[in-house]
């Protein structure tokens, strides 16, 4: 997955969890949870949505890597579908 594809995954999953959130309004290093008022259940749904859309197993210990858009992109681009990024 390249950067653009990863960004599109984040956009699509975020749209499902928090349709009111506009990804274009945040900087790449800004905390998504704070910027979009996501609570912890939203964040769980976000991580699960990433798994459903990409097949990548997102471990709980990797959640901090998904805190920002750039973090998500880095995580997704280094991951291979079906395996966790950190293994």
């Amino acid at each position: 997955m390249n950067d653009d594809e990863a960004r599109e995954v984040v956009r699509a999953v975020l749209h499902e969890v928090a349709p009111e959130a506009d990804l274009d309004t945040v900087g790449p290093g800004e905390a998504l949870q704070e910027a979009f008022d996501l609570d912890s259940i939203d964040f769980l749904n976000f991580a699960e949505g990433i798994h459903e859309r990409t097949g990548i197993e997102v471990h709980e210990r990797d959640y901090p890597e998904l805190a920002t858009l750039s973090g998500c992109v880095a995580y997704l681009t280094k991951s291979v579908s079906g395996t966790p990024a950190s293994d």
Partner: protein
Amino acid sequence: MAWETIHKTGQGAAVPPNLVDYDSERAGFSWEAARGQLTGLPAGGGLNIAYEAVDRHAEGPMGERVALRCLDRAGSRTDVTYGELAARSSRFAGVLEGLGVRPGERVFALMPRTADLFAVALGTLKHRAVLSPLFAAFGPAPIRQRLQLGTGRVIVTTPGLYRRKVAPVRDDLPELRHVLLAGGGEPVPGTLDLGSLLEDADPAYEIGPTDPEDMALLHFTSGTTGTPKGAVHVHEAVVSHAVTGRLALDLHDGDVFWCTADPGWVTGTSYGIVSPLVNGVTCIVDEGEFDAERWYETLEREAVTVWYTAPTALRMLMQAGSGAAEGHDLSALRFVASVGEPLNPEVVVWSRDVLGVPAHDNWWQTETGGIMVANYASMDVRPGSMGKPLPGIGATVLRRDDHGKVVLDGEGAAVPAAAGEEGELALRPGWPSMFRGYLGEEERYRSCFAGGWYLSGDLARRDEDGYFWFIGRADDVIKSAGHLIGPFEVESCLMEHPAVVEAGVIGLPDPVAGELVHAYVTLAAGVEASDELRLELVGFARKRLGAAVAPRDIAFDQHLPHTRSGKVMRRLLKARALGLPEGDVSTLESVP
């Protein structure tokens, strides 16, 4: 399946529990004696929560003790002693005085967990103004509504929360005189900077005479219908906060206590601020949100001894797997308690196996102000049970009739349910932290009582040995991630959207949050159902209500079930969603 009782032998405990034997503690307990353990304002000036929580400690040798250990999001750590907290909260009391805020007026706090929150909360109480906390995950609509209902004079918040949640509704709040922003940053027009106000204020403030019955706290909670209710609590509540911290949370001198509750909810005040400080312990104040790794690290690094958290958090930790806990030394942890929704037995046992101590469920609500029913350090735990009533608390389960009303006998007394029989959990009025009313709604307050009991609205049963077991809500209020959500509030919001003519909102079971908010909407004539519209409605509700209150999902339903009087039958919606058989459905509510 039946879960095995977790036995407590009490033998060889390094720290003997405060409550050694449940029955004898209960028999010997009196609220007068409990009140006697507090100090009271000097020269017979009455009873003030903030004085009991900080000033009386600060004046003695405990002034040097760490009251708050604050962890910011980046992980850095700042200690605040009891002496420093006394001074900072006095400065805030002085700020309020300087602004012309009068005792009894309401100060709202929409703030993250930081030292400033404590200064604001305690300073408000010192000034004898009324503290009303708001939840940061609320959207602008619930915030506006609560500020209006509570006639908020002052709100203290952060620049980000102000911009997103208060500024958009400020024109609707003519009574709101002052907006104070914590956390620095660029000056924002129409607001004052909390930091510089505190700096300029006097660190000494003499607390005025405080009647124990003076209003101290205003906590909003949701009902099935109508607007949120503002539950009024008074300064005398501190007696309950002191006792329950000691008996239900087993707080001891020297403890490091961590309450993870959001400051916007009653737990965040009663046990996030007041109870631990009154008991003189060190509080961990973590600004960050849930993060399994960070939480384990915090428990270990700070050597937390007593931990008060929520079932949703424990279930999320459980989901993270026992591997996440491995390698963390949690041996300092002596007592774990949980509140917010029933704690399923799996979590109790998981906690014992992974954290090293079972999680102790307890029960209370906004109206009760403090813990009412609990599992104690010294008492055997029956996993899944909320435990037994606190010393000083009379609790029972009352029989209900077919319409859900408590059964009264010929003399007007309520009839208790038999052992094992499901009924309404009820409490004998008179404990110090009982709510004294719903602000401006006498009738609604009165309807909470019958036959000499406060009716909790929760269904429960009591087993033969006196353990209480939670069954569910008696009304349609939704319990999600420990928070009560009024379906009416959500339905009203959805109906503001032009595509929606009617909405029914219910809670559906969720393995992590207990229940999640689901909405069923009927679309206006000519409007096509589509996935795009579904997401638009979810976004519409989230923008107004915030993540904590808005529905997680919305389904279209052009045939919502109604009662004869035309109301949406939420119970029937729920039965349908859960696939309950038709036979069960007919008994849920009168079908037209």
